[in-house]
């Protein structure tokens, strides 16, 4: 859907105002379409979320939730050092995974825009998105074949004689989580970076180099400032979902790679609803702050349209 951005360029026709009135619907006709959405999001999204907010400030007494307003759940979370550590680890794992994703994706997007003929670019992009369309769970699972104790890396190390026992360094720890997250979110970053690099005016690049700039200087001083919005968008689109990851740390992170998503799930599975609610709201607060700060970067009207 390449025609999404063009609305603004259509000049209003002289009779536009009158004609628009000809199409005008009543209040119900205008807003009626929201009704199903209000029911779905109101009853099954906003209300449960509100309940979770309330829970995070309530207490459990004798296995019953009591409506006593308190900050105890939050205090409790930060008083247990494992939980507090997991919270900060979640932030840095997300930062590291996002950085790795961008570091892999930027040279790739640069290569795609600059060296691949225009008519082939779409095909190469589809190849990037292809794994993204396959099952998320299976993509995580696929890495167990590589990182696991009997996986490709261990087999290789044993074969060249570096180790005689399988080493578990590659699995069940944070490096594995970061690597797999970069793998999962690479398509997001590649797509957004490609979109902004594609609009970049390469003549400016050429001009800079004519004036004696090295390619790296040209990238740093001419290109990066112009594609900064694209980079911000891709950072946000990768970083935010990673903050709430559950499955990847669960499958490849093991006990040492726990992120806050796993903590939250454990709280709720253990029926510690108020504590789980507080943990969930902590990470949601981080996300909401990021969304508000970077709301401009999120106005990607056609990001999801194929």
């Amino acid at each position, binding site marked *: 859907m390449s025609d999404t951005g063009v609305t603004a360029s259509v000049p209003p026709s002289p009779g536009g105002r009158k004609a628009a009135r000809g199409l005008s619907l009543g209040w119900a006709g205008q807003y009626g379409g929201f009704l199903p959405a209000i029911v779905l999001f109101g009853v099954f999204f906003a209300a449960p979320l509100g309940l979770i907010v309330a829970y995070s400030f309530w207490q459990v007494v004798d296995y019953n939730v009591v409506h006593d307003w308190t900050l105890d759940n939050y205090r409790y979370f930060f008083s247990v050092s494992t939980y507090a550590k997991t919270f900060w680890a979640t932030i840095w794992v997300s930062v590291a995974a996002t950085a790795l994703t961008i570091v892999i994706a930027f040279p790739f997007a640069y290569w795609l825009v600059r060296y691949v003929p225009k008519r082939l670019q779409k095909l190469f992009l589809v190849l990037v998105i292809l794994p993204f369309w396959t099952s998320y769970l299976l993509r995580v699972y696929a890495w167990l074949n590589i990182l696991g104790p009997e996986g490709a890396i261990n087999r290789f190390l044993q074969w060249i004689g570096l180790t005689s026992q399988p080493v578990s360094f590659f699995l069940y720890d944070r490096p594995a989580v970061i690597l797999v997250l970069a793998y999962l979110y690479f398509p997001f970053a590649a797509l957004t970076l490609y979109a902004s690099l594609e609009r970049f005016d390469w003549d400016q690049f050429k001009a800079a180099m004519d004036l004696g700039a090295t390619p790296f200087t040209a990238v740093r001083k001419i290109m990066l400032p112009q594609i900064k919005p694209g980079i911000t968008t891709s950072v946000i689109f990768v970083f935010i979902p990673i903050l709430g990851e559950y499955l990847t740390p669960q499958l490849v992170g093991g006990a040492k790679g726990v992120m806050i998503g796993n903590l939250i*799930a454990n709280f709720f599975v253990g029926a510690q609803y108020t504590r789980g*609610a507080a943990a969930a709201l902590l990470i949601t607060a981080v996300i909401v702050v990021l969304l508000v700060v970077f709301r401009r970067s999120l106005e990607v009207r056609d990001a999801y349209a194929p």
Partner: protein
Amino acid sequence: MPRELEVVSPRAGLMRAFLSGWAALVYLFLFVPIGLLVAFSFNANKYGTFPFTGWTTHWYGQVFGDYQIKDALTTTLRVAIFVTIISTIVGTAAAFPLVRSKLPFRSGVRVGMTLPIMIPGLLIGVSLLVFLTNVFHLQLSVWTAIVGQSVYTTPFVLLIVAARLQGFDQSLERAASDLGANTFNRLRYVVLPLIAPAVFAGALFAFTLSLDEFIITLFLIGGSNTLPLYIYTQVKFGITPEVNALATLLLLASLVLIVLAFVLPVAARRLRLAVRARRVAS
């Protein structure tokens, strides 16, 4: 045009070689894990990993004979169909006022409606779990999972259809109105055919998301199993060749879905044009 740049820097050739190598590594990075998965599914080794001990299709036979997988597949499809129906209707209906009405705080409403995508799916799952079981004392079932998944998939349909509506030329509707079409007919004969590709794309997207959804389903489906949940429990016990075979089949299925997504709209348009041409000819 970018090619001319090569002349400028003597190191351009080196740069190009480096970046091409990088891109090749990226594609390896993307496809080797999946390729290994497929390869292992034909491996006779009963631990489902290295070394390759021989070629077999035995694991596929096991997949097709496994009643648990059959059950999980049925549940997955049933959930996905209902989720697709709900989110397509709700998302498409909401896209109209979002794009067209003189809504105050429109960008706020837009952000609010896309919130279910941005917050962790985990939170949707646990909040609905507490809400439905503690407040309404409902039994968890396939239906609670359907509702939970719909909350997550509807914003995608909404975004896709809204993007299409934004590029929509309203003078077509005015023309229809001038020619005497009422609201319903305008919708039926002008608007819907024009946004149909977006609605179709949204529906397909919702369907694939639902097939794959894990975390919301985990908390809300109760005793039933969907395929992702089944695979997850199997994986927790270690890699099994049967799961490799099942995974390969699912990859194949999603490939078919993608191809359909690209081919079907084009084919439908051709068919419609052909029918119209014949009607005109006769």
